[in-house]
């Protein structure tokens, strides 16, 4: 490698390591995509305003965990789920991956004038069912109505409260070289299901959203690996790639992902191949990524596989020391490439 190229690359890494500044003149759809623009919004505007370093998905206070999330998915119903289920599972999962057993939710509905009562009733029932199956109560809430055309049917916000599990010692900055990276199931299904459900492509494939509560997976992991478990993340917007990048940055470590070991169902691979997108960047609503100490990797993986529906869980890579902050992929072909945060927005409004 020519030294000039090496110098150019090092300069880029220095520029990238600087804290992001929010310099945009207006909000574009990219700010909602979970990639670099979202990071700039959070770390460049929101977090500094509140005097904190970053806005975590869930915060902990006196043994409790608190989180909140809004759902604006379009269409409201899609194969495998609907906005109501998503609103419960999304918030429950933010608690679960923080190592907290979900206790209760509050619910806030913004409804559009003209929304049919039948659609609303279906979503309320979906919320009730998902809450019951996740073992949480919906205990407070609010409703607002806006004029026709001001929102797509309904927007839903849920806030979740959980109790920190005593077995959990999790933190995004706790990854160590040698740690193994696990995923709890096949990736990319939610994003692809939504994309196909919108009917923008003349493409049909039996792909359903994977939306479900991840507490059983987290519970099994905590049982099997305890304090060998470093960190868990819910691979939603921006997919597995974005989660790995966030963790590599937070812990100042490198990662190597073995592409051939990442579980992806053939239907998802096919759709991604045709659409020219990488499943690693496609959203999930029921897949977690866990970093675990090397000697506990085997039992942790066995625990994930023991959860109903978890047979495809896999070890996909390893934490390294150098180069810090960078996630690298070993391609099935034998080459190597960088896997960066997502730029732009291939799939707006998936959750």
């Amino acid at each position: 490698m020519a030294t000039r190229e090496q110098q150019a690359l090092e300069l880029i890494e220095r520029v990238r390591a600087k804290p992001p500044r929010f310099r945009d003149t207006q909000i574009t759809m990219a700010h909602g995509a979970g990639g670099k623009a979202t990071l700039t919004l959070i770390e460049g505007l929101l977090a500094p305003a509140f005097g904190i370093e970053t806005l975590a998905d869930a915060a902990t206070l006196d043994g409790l965990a608190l989180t909140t999330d809004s759902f604006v998915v379009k269409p409201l119903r899609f194969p495998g789920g609907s906005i109501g289920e998503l609103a419960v599972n999304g918030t429950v999962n933010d608690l679960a991956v923080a190592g907290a057993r979900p206790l209760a939710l509050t619910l806030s509905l913004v409804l559009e004038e003209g929304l049919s009562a039948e659609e609303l009733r279906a979503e309320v029932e979906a919320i009730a069912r998902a809450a019951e199956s996740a073992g949480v109560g919906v205990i407070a809430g609010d409703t607002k109505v806006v004029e026709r055309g001001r929102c797509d049917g309904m927007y839903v916000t849920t806030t979740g409260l959980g109790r920190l599990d005593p077995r959990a010692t999790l933190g995004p900055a706790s990854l160590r070289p040698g740690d193994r990276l696990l995923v709890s199931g096949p990736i990319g299904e939610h994003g692809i299901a939504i994309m196909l459900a919108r009917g923008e492509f003349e493409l049909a494939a039996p792909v359903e959203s994977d939306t479900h509560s991840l507490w059983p997976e987290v519970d099994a992991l905590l049982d099997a690996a305890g304090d060998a478990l470093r960190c868990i993340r819910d691979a939603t917007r921006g997919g597995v790639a974005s989660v790995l990048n966030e963790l590599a940055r937070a812990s100042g470590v490198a990662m190597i992902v073995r592409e051939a070991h990442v579980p992806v169902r053939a239907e998802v691979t096919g759709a991604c191949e045709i659409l020219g997108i990488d499943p690693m960047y496609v959203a999930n609503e029921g897949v977690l990524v866990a970093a675990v100490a090397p000697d506990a990797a085997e039992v942790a993986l066995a625990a994930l596989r023991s959860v109903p529906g978890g047979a495809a869980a896999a070890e996909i890579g390893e934490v390294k020391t150098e180069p810090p902050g960078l996630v690298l992929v070993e391609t099935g072909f034998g080459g190597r490439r960088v896997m960066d945060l997502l730029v732009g927005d291939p799939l707006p409004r998936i959750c």
Partner: protein
Amino acid sequence: MRFVDEFRDAELGRALAAEILATVEPGRHYKVMEVCGGHTHTIYKYGVDDMLPENVELVHGPGCPVCVIPMGRVDDGIAVALRPEVIFTCFGDMMRVPGGAGSLLDAKAEGADVRMVYSPLDALRLARENPDREVVFLAVGFETTAPSTALTLMRAKAERIENFFVYCNHVTIVPPLRALLQSPDLRLDGFIGPGHVSTVVGARPFEFLPRDYGKPVVISGFEPLDLLQSVHMVLRQLADGRCEVENQYKRVVPYEGNPQALAVLAEVFELRPHFEWRGLGFISHSGLRLSERYAEFDAELRYHVPGVRVADPKACQCGEVLKGVIKPWECKVFGTACTPERPIGTCMVSSEGACAAYYNYGRFARERAVV
């Protein structure tokens, strides 16, 4: 996945790499240009260049349709998009291409009705569904995508749809290659020819490369093994002292191209006297516009677009990158002021752009150890 995995086989890749190593003369430096942005993307995505000997250098060429659009054409598009009666449609990549004052994505945030589509037929459907609006499709691309625009226009005409217009930025592949070869600062040993374009135009249009310029060319597919095999075929020609057009992508590219596609291009489009290319300047007979038979669908005639010319930002060296004169990392703003999230130049926008491919996938010194 069948018919794809076979072309990504690591073992066959290693065997080809060994054959390439055996073909090159040790003291000689080889420069081979891959014309097409799709090839650039594959090279970085699979780490194909990791498998080549050090003295074989792949030079990225001008065949990324998004990269070659000059800023003035983006500004003209934005002027149309800002009209209240217009629904402006384009492919996703085009939304982020910077013009003189922002991109289409910025125009959308300011209130322009800009929508991403995946095919010109989606734009035509929008026109049918919104009879009270005027739907404009921003058409970009080489002969690869031009037939789909042409067929969409033929359908619009047959259905007598009156609220559908095309802002045509289609270009042709041969003129920029000639322009490149006339530039004195580029020394190339051979070309990897564009596979997708060739499915339409065939292999014959590239015969001028060996005939007039003495450069071998191998038309290549887009999987990593296709590229390795094509590099090997170019090097083999050099070693044998041959110089001809070879077709590695025979499973898709007929030597004479696709006569039906060529016929619809001739029906719907005509060559412009000249067209501006980002960083390359005006090249004669290199761009397409709608023929007189389809003038009623021509957005440029309908909206009297301002026809602005905007000089490229001084710091941006996209032109040199597109010509293969410099590597992406040699540009002064690469990766610092110009990044995929805040691009200055077009090459940093599309995933087929050399700068974006290098930044997103290749930004890691190959020899550097991962420990």
